């Protein structure tokens, strides 16, 4: 193990480590903690210049305010409306493409696979004008499905990479045995491979959820109004209205950050398994 386990170090070093851990954590999360505290600070404190001192009270009303006086609840719902179909769509499509690329050895296989991988890394800007134009022409501009459709297509690239490698790592004998038995290909997919894919599906679902929830670029390019804008774009436009009302900006930020953070905590193992794919062999 590297570095040498702290248990083997001197008592002094062990103490130092125990103290250094929380101190480092607080320093590391300083912007987050500061914003979390500001979100609970009464507006009057900020007006008096009390930014870092003891708050005069805990102001839950900041949160009440943004929920009642701004469309932030609607923005959150819009985000869900885009995110959940995208997760289902992208995972569903990539299960099939991943299966096709992992199990069948046809000629264009590797080419198609690399195309998915490469497409996953292109800058968004090169897609922007044509995708926006197409969405407008199809009458899907400023709708949740217009945004979700694009996300499904784009995320399929990353998901295919993940699924294909996952299926490749499964024992091929299973599929072979089924073929000897005369099981149809789609039944192999449905009854043999799919049940083994649960961990991969879980990992990708959390990852895609987080990516899409946090997306800002496409939200600004493909949506406009309160009825369809997701939380990231909504927060940005609210930020323009709340000039220097940092207690509101902070409350909005914390709210926007909550769902992915909750997702991460609930599904931590899967999340990290998804992100570190390929980091170890």
């Amino acid at each position, binding site marked *: *193990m*590297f570095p040498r*386990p702290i*248990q083997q170090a001197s008592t002094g070093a062990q103490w130092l480590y125990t103290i250094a851990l929380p101190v480092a*954590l607080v320093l590391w*999360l300083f912007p*987050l903690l*500061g*914003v979390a505290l500001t979100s609970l600070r009464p507006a009057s404190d900020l007006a008096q210049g009390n930014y*870092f001192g003891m708050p005069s009270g805990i102001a839950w009303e900041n949160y009440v305010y943004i929920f009642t006086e701004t469309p932030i609840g609607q923005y959150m719902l819009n985000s869900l409306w885009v995110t959940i179909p995208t997760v289902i769509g992208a995972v569903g*499509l990539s299960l*099939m*493409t991943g299966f*096709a*690329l992992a199990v*069948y*050895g046809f000629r264009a296989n*590797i080419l*198609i696979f*690399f195309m998915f*991988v*490469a497409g996953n*890394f*292109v*800058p*968004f*800007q*090169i*897609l*922007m*004008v044509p995708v*926006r134009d197409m969405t407008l022409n199809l009458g899907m501009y400023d709708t949740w499905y217009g945004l979700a*459709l694009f996300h499904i*297509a784009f995320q399929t*690239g990353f998901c*295919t990479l993940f699924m294909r490698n996952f299926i490749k790592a499964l024992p091929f004998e299973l599929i*072979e045995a089924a*073929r*000897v038995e*005369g099981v149809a*290909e789609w039944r192999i997919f449905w009854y043999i491979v799919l049940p083994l894919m649960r961990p991969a599906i879980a990992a990708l679902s959390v990852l895609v959820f*987080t990516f899409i929830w*946090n997306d*800002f*670029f496409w939200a*600004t*390019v493909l949506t406009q109004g309160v009825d369809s804008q997701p939380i*990231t774009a909504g927060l940005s436009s609210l930020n323009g209205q709340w000039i220097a009302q*940092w207690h509101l*900006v*902070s409350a909005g*930020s914390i709210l*926007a*950050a909550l769902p*992915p953070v909750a997702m991460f905590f609930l599904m931590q193992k899967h999340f990290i398994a998804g*992100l*570190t794919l390929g*980091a*170890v*062999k």
Partner: protein
Amino acid sequence: MTQASDTVAVAPVGRSRGRLNQRVIAPWLFLAPGLFMFAVYVLWPILQSITLSLYDWNGLYNQDGEFTGTFIGMGNYAELMVDPAFETSLWNNLKWLVLYMLALPIGLFIAIFLNQTVTGIRLYKSLFFFPFVISQVVVGLMFAWFYAPNFGLFYTMIEWFRNDGAWIIATPFFLLKLLPLAIFVILIGRITFWAARNAPSRAWSNIGFLPIALLLVFAWVMSEGISQYYQSAWTELVASFAGKGIAILADPDLVTYGIIAAGLWPQIAYVMILYLTGLNNVAPDQIEAARLDGAKGWRMLWYVVLPQLRPATFIAVIVTVIGALRSFDLVSIMTNGGPFGSSRILSYYMYEKALSEYGFRMGYGAAIAVVLFAIMMVFISGFIWKMWRDEKER
């Protein structure tokens, strides 16, 4: 394919034809929906953008629904060559790319710091990972608050350092100023020592007065002139720092660095998690063997651990490069490219040209996107090349 042909040999002859056909068609059926979506939303738009970059188009169609752009060949690219805003964006992209690489050593350092088995370490690891989970919009707002002029924490900290804490910054500068004096004293000492050693023993009394005299003169000068000079230099130095904090997002020279720092925060977290997973898989017997050979600290890290972390480093470089070139959210949230366009990067400048209130120059925007795409392609091809080699090895 060998496995497949084995199966065919075993299967009943009468059915094998149909089965084989099924196995030729099946992959395409499985691929069709995903491939279709990907082609429509990713591949085709790339080609369209490249074509569009040769046109001058305001994004509109005429009444009959016809495209209204005019073909201008390389016109957009020619204009890019002399566009100062494009040059600024390109330079800023380079800054992003270079400084983002700091995420690697810092992420590795944090991963090593956290790679222990003490109670609660799992929670610490996930809390350290937090910044990556949060939307960049939120990260941007957090750092905007952190940098905010007059009350922001960063601003206040700088202000404190420049006034009450000035001695902390002044001390190293002051020591630097003392350097010539220190060198002078050391030289005198050296010379007297040398003179004393080389002088014939009888002549010692003749030479002995020199160092003493020099020392006396020096002590006098020190106490009177020089000490006063240095004292005033000290006061001057401390006073020279006095001033207000730095409004980093309003300063054209610093703004990009401020945004990059915000971007590094989640990026470091990502790299950290990659390295933590990598460290988990480092072969313990190799570490132990190296330890028996007396390797430790930096040498152990450099010669034993880092080579084993190669796959993690590779992925970390890729995601960091992509992250640096893709960044858009932070610039958009924190500065809108300002002040005076000094924090623009290609991705943002493209958006500004094609979609914002500054005009709808789709063709020009597409040309910027093509340049960004070309830069990115260099790295993407490297990645694909490596994957290709790995695939062949299997």
